[in-house]
């Protein structure tokens, strides 16, 4: 029985920081957004407005949950739960140092990819079960969008795997000991970043919830805590994508320079710093780029990113093969 409690403690030690950082990251997102637009942003609740998300969460908890009478009730309630759960279970395989990982599985990167590709179900379920026009349109848009950009993310992951020779996330981090993959695979990093924006429905690709056309997309009929769960799941997904980018391209928990004072800093701190760096980029993009038109979005995914990343797979494979650098074990 003690092993069960031990695992539960481990899971809590992972989940509670993730949930707290999701709340903080919402605040950071709004502050960066305000900074770019020369506004103040949330700065009233607590020091620098740090407790703003807490206040918002309290507000959501005390609001009434309204379930539309014509909705499909079971699926309507399941949808935010699915979004939230999927956003949280993916953190099980993220390595915070060589030993600090909840589940060090062989196919870690496939697990991450699978969970992020399941994320679309929360949105489709929410949109369909609402039984209303705008949510349904939003759900259909997001299904098409997420399936399209998953393809290019998959091909980009193949690029990285060619250089690593293993699907384990710790192996991927260790393979970047001499050089982070962001240097040899820089174009892939850019495409990964943009695809991650589309995969998490962030601006400029936030068409599923485009408020100018679809009210709030799939979230239109949700209120109170259920809306908050969608919201938390969305931000947890964004953090997850940042973590994936940090592990695949920025060396994960490794220190940027392999010299004495830097190696003393625990790996978790480096990983968090890299995730924060990527997240601030996400927030900046939200502030400075206008929304894409839907056909432009599809064109970008299928006609630009997919061929580019496929060509890069051929290039990487031929380079590694010609110079006999293929990882063999």
């Amino acid at each position: 029985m003690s092993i069960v409690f031990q695992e539960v403690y481990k899971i809590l030690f992972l989940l509670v920081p993730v949930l707290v950082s999701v709340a903080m990251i919402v605040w950071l997102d709004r502050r960066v957004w305000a900074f770019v637009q020369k506004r103040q942003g949330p700065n009233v609740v607590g020091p620098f407005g740090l407790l703003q998300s807490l206040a918002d969460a309290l507000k959501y908890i005390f609001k009434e949950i309204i379930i539309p009478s014509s909705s499909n009730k079971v699926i309507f309630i399941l949808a935010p739960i699915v979004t939230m759960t999927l956003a949280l279970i993916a953190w099980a395989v993220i390595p915070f140092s060589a030993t600090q990982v909840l589940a060090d599985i062989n196919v870690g990167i496939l697990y991450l990819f699978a969970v992020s590709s399941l994320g679309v179900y929360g949105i489709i379920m929410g949109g369909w079960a609402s039984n209303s026009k705008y949510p349904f349109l939003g759900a259909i848009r997001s299904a098409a969008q997420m399936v399209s950009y998953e393809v290019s993310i998959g091909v980009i992951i193949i690029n990285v795997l060619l250089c690593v020779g293993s699907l384990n996330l710790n192996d991927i981090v260790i393979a970047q000991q001499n050089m982070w993959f962001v240097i040899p695979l820089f174009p892939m990093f850019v495409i990964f970043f943009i695809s991650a924006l589309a995969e998490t429905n962030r601006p400029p690709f936030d068409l599923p919830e485009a408020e100018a056309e679809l009210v709030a997309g799939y979230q239109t009929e949700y209120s109170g805590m259920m809306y908050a769960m969608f919201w938390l799941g969305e931000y947890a997904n964004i953090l997850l994508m940042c973590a994936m980018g940090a592990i695949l391209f920025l060396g994960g928990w490794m220190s940027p320079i392999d010299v004495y004072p830097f190696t003393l800093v625990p790996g978790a701190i480096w990983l968090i710093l890299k995730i924060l760096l990527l997240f601030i980029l996400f927030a900046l993009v939200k502030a400075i780029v206008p929304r894409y038109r839907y056909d432009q979005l599809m064109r970008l995914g299928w006609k630009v990113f997919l061929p580019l990343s496929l060509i890069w797979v051929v290039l990487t494979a031929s380079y590694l093969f010609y110079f006999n650098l293929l990882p063999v074990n």
Partner: protein
Amino acid sequence: MIAHAIFFYTFSIIAVVSAIMVTASKNTVHSVFFLILDFISISCLFIMIGAEFLGMIMLIVYVGAVAVLFLFVVMMLNVAQQKNQWFAGQATSKHIPVGLIISTLIFFEIVIVIGGWKYKPEIFDINNSLANTSVSNTHSLGQILYTDYIHVFQISGMILLVAMIGAIVLTFRQRSGVKKQSYIKQISRERAEGVEVLEVQSNKGVKIDD
């Protein structure tokens, strides 16, 4: 071992029940959701027998892509209504006897195939199974697929590609009068092509021809 059994029976019961519910539920969208639940529990079973690569690929390909398209199509069609009419007996369909004949045929074919099935005796030797070797099953699968069965593998890929191209060709229709955006054309436009400065006289106006 007990935990293993508990997990095995949980996942298999979920798999069987949701497979039954796929055909039993009245709402078509619900059956697709049950199908997804079925896929997920099957992939959990794959992971439990140590085939984690297959389990994950099952999740990515079937649940992440194929089932999304299923759901997409089923939500668009108004199948639920039609199906309820059959249940109510208002409309009799000519397809039902044909479907019954085909399904009986397939049932007997499956019975014949499974009845004559023989396993290699080595398979039951536990020491010989792949799960016990030091190589991970991703590696061992790759070593078999890309060496002994490379031609079969490539041919199946070709068949999929041909099917995809065929589907595109069959549904492709060229519509006239659709405005398309050409990025090259837009970017390479000069000022002289787009803007013309006219001398407009009072009370005369300008004639714009386009």
